[in-house]
């Protein structure tokens, strides 16, 4: 290690925020796409 | 298999104007790299190996795409497969033919590299070996992906898109080895990288051959 790293809360918050954002956005996109695909399949019938 | 290889080589000989065009493309790529970096002789010499292999890699997409062009034009692939020939033989015939073309291209680009980047070396046999091993690493997966993408729209973008991430180890090894040959090898890393490159070639020449008949089955 190159020594003590002071501060850095901003980066921690950024990392957690990015992680949460990716999970939420991807999850929501999946649920939306699934709903669309289901309704389209129901229409075709 | 010799017959398959002969057919490929005959085809390539007939279209040898193609080779000239690809060589000019590769050489101009090397020229463009030096413009991008600037006329600093030291820097150019240090990165000469990288430039040469990048130029070779970019040119290889043209060569590889061409190798299935004839089959696509004349729907000859289906005809080929109807013959009582193992598809694997067709694969190895094409892969070897592509490899030979790339080796030739590599050899042709060496003088360009020597002149533009002042990157000469006396260890020519080692350099030749590295070029042969490195291009083999490009040719095996490249031929497989060329077979796939030749039947698809957007084939020109798909082939490099699929190939480039895959051949990273071969590229790293080839550039490193070439660099060690040109600039010197104080720590004796040559054999380790040779082993890596050879292992890569062995794995992919067998794996791609194994998977090829699934790729072309109807």
């Amino acid at each position, binding site marked *: 290690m190159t020594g*003590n790293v002071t501060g850095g809360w901003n980066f921690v918050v950024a990392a957690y925020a990015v992680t949460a954002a990716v999970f939420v956005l991807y999850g929501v996109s999946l649920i939306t796409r699934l709903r669309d695909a289901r309704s389209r399949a129901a229409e075709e019938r | 298999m010799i017959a398959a290889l002969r057919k490929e080589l005959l085809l390539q000989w007939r279209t040898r104007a193609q080779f000239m065009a690809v060589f000019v493309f590769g050489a101009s790529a090397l020229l463009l790299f030096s413009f991008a970096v600037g006329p600093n002789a030291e820097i150019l010499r240090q990165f000469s190996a990288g430039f040469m292999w990048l130029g070779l890699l970019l040119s290889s997409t043209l060569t590889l795409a061409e190798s299935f062009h004839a089959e696509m034009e004349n729907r000859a692939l289906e005809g080929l497969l109807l013959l009582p020939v193992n598809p694997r033989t067709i694969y190895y015939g094409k892969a070897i033919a592509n490899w030979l073309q790339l080796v030739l291209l590599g050899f042709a680009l060496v003088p360009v590299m020597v002149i533009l980047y002042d990157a000469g070396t006396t260890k020519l046999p080692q350099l030749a070996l590295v070029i042969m091993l490195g291009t083999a690493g490009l040719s095996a997966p490249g031929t497989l992906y060329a077979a796939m993408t030749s039947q698809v729209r957007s084939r020109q973008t798909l082939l490099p898109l*699929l190939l480039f991430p895959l051949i990273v*180890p071969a590229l790293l090894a080839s550039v490193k080895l070439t660099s060690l040959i040109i600039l010197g090898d104080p720590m004796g890393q040559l054999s380790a990288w040779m082993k890596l490159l050879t292992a890569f070639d062995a794995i992919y020449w067998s794996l*791609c051959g194994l998977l090829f008949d699934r790729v072309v089955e109807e």
Partner: protein
Amino acid sequence: MSTTKSLFVRRYVPGLVLLAIGAYFGFVVALAEFNNINLGFGLATGLQAAIAAIAAVAGTISFLIVDDVETSAKGPNILLVAGIICFLIGSYIGLFVAPPEQHMGEVQRIMYVHVPTAWNALLAMTVAFASAVVFLFKSDWKWDAVMEGSIEVGVVFAFLLCAQGSIWAKPTWNVWWDWDPRLTTTAVLLFAFLGILALRRFVEDPVKRGIWSSVATIIAYVDVPIVYFSVKWWNSLHQTQSSPGTVSKQFYLPLRANAIGILFLMTAFIMLRARISALRLKQELAPPPLVEAQLGEVV
């Protein structure tokens, strides 16, 4: 009705049992140790950790294996909620309860999300590889759907990994990218699997699409260790700094909680994405409606 219920139980019980074993060795034993109660059957801590990890992964993946991608999304939705809860717990502990590390200070907390994401990204790629192999052998469309799902999830996780790695690298080494072998391999993997997704998008025949992308997935996955070693050697002369290291023993609780949470999320994502793929496949493989109208019930 009782037979379907027993079928339901039979399918999910093995997974739940495995998860229980994982939870026991992963959390219960550790928490008991804080109160000096020994529940570990005399096994070494390393072995306990290994059992916990294998049991948790096997249990969750078993849900994926028994999942029928044609049914409703109740299963994945349950997993999704469980994953969110575990991830929130783990992140809370990691952010506010765990003490700052000796050398790296607060930045160490990034490891509590980065390391679990890394494990799960690799797991997603492995699921893709396994699905590809199974699909080539069995030609069961479920596995083509699962493969497409796990490739896309793997791409999302790999991208996330690169973002987290960059955010970690800046305060630590003052550069946005430090060519760490693990992270660089992830970047190469990201591009490789993006290429496979592009391949799937451009091939219209479902059979060709399935076979070609399976072949490409196998080739790309086999490359992963080779890329890792080549980048490691390539970098070894310049890498004077150590890479994001493993977490020391006192900090494993938030790590494990997040690992389970993200594992649940990953599996739920794959199951949902596989359902989307299965619906599209059904449309493509079904006879065209005009033919049905003309020929009626004969088709």
